């Protein structure tokens, strides 16, 4: 008996993101996804019509998850007692990095690596996932530096340094799970950056 759509759709998407993230759109067959998700290839075609559409849905789903994580992160920050702004900046960035699955980062990177000719909407979704955290970090930075007149672009340039660096580290992370060593070097990068942009 075919399983319910509402149950298997998220499972298929989850496995599709993991596989596409690892091997790219061309390197994965719908059969691979079906096996990983424990469903039939027929179910995939019934739900997603084509591999291309499955890929698009995977990007959208990864982008939706990224948005949800950011929302949760912002709620967590505002519910905690206020800390020193530099600490808040470091906590925010590390929380973002740790909650970001490697497969999602890789799938965004694939989309960003393709030029806009084919699908601008997909690109916007992937860009959104990065530009939001840049904007959040730049916002906290602005609050810290309020007394100093900083030209408007420079806060986001500074935030971009750390976000792009962290994004690179996430994409090139050796395994799906972060190792202790990698985690340490990322923490050092974040606190080094915070010291640089918001010296205590």
């Amino acid at each position: 008996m075919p399983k319910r759509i509402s149950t298997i759709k998220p499972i298929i998407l989850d496995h599709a993101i993991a596989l596409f993230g690892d091997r790219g759109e061309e390197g994965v067959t719908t059969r691979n996804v079906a096996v990983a998700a424990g469903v039939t290839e027929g179910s995939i075609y019934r739900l997603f019509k084509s591999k291309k559409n499955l890929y698009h849905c995977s990007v959208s789903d990864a982008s939706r998850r990224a948005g949800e994580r950011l929302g949760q992160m912002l709620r967590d920050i505002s519910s905690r007692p206020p800390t020193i702004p530099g600490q808040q900046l470091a906590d925010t960035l590390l929380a973002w990095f740790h909650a970001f699955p490697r497969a999602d980062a890789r799938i965004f990177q694939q989309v960003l690596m393709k030029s806009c000719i084919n699908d601008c909407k997909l690109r916007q979704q992937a860009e959104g996932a990065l530009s939001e955290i840049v904007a959040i970090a730049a916002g906290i930075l602005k609050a810290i530096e309020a007394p100093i007149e900083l030209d408007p672009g420079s806060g986001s340039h500074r935030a971009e340094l750390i976000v792009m660096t962290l994004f690179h580290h996430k994409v090139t992370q050796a395994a799906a799970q972060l190792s202790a060593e990698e985690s340490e070097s990322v923490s050092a990068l974040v606190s080094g950056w915070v010291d640089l942009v918001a010296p205590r």
Partner: protein
Amino acid sequence: MPRKTSVIEPRILEHAILLFGDQGYGVSTRDIAASASVTEASIYRIFDTKERLYQLAIKNVGERAQQQMGQVLLRIAQLPQSNPKKQIAETVRGWYDMLSRADARILQQVLKQATPYDKKARDLAWAPLGQIIAIVSGLQNKYKTKTAKAALNAQLLVWALFQHKVLQASPQPTKEENQKIQALIENWIDLVQS
């Protein structure tokens, strides 16, 4: 008449780098042959397998990156010592402009590779990036930055620029992208200087 290996070998490699960089290992030897205007048979005659062609492409990119590092160092020596800000900005910019998008993408593919984990290839890809980080970190001594801190600062700039190169929209950067990179570099220097 088959053309000489010495002539077509480098050409095949160049096209292989462009295509592997753009589309990853999934590219077919057929596509590479078409792009380099040679027969697929020539590719197999010279390189045996696609895997070996990919490995040679990596090796080629790694060596080119090493040579570029030599040019970066030469350039530093020619830049005025009296203006450290200009010296750092032009060094970083020179490195960034020399690195082609395809090369950056191949380096990143290697760094990303978890299975099979090829330590030799990873070290080869890491070396030029580690060197530019060390160079930029060294140039900050002029601002009396502590060594460990300078290394961290340099990593932030180099990784961010590297990621931008990988994601550059087309092989040639647009005017907008160029301005953005310049702004990132100058803003970073203002930061480390203060």
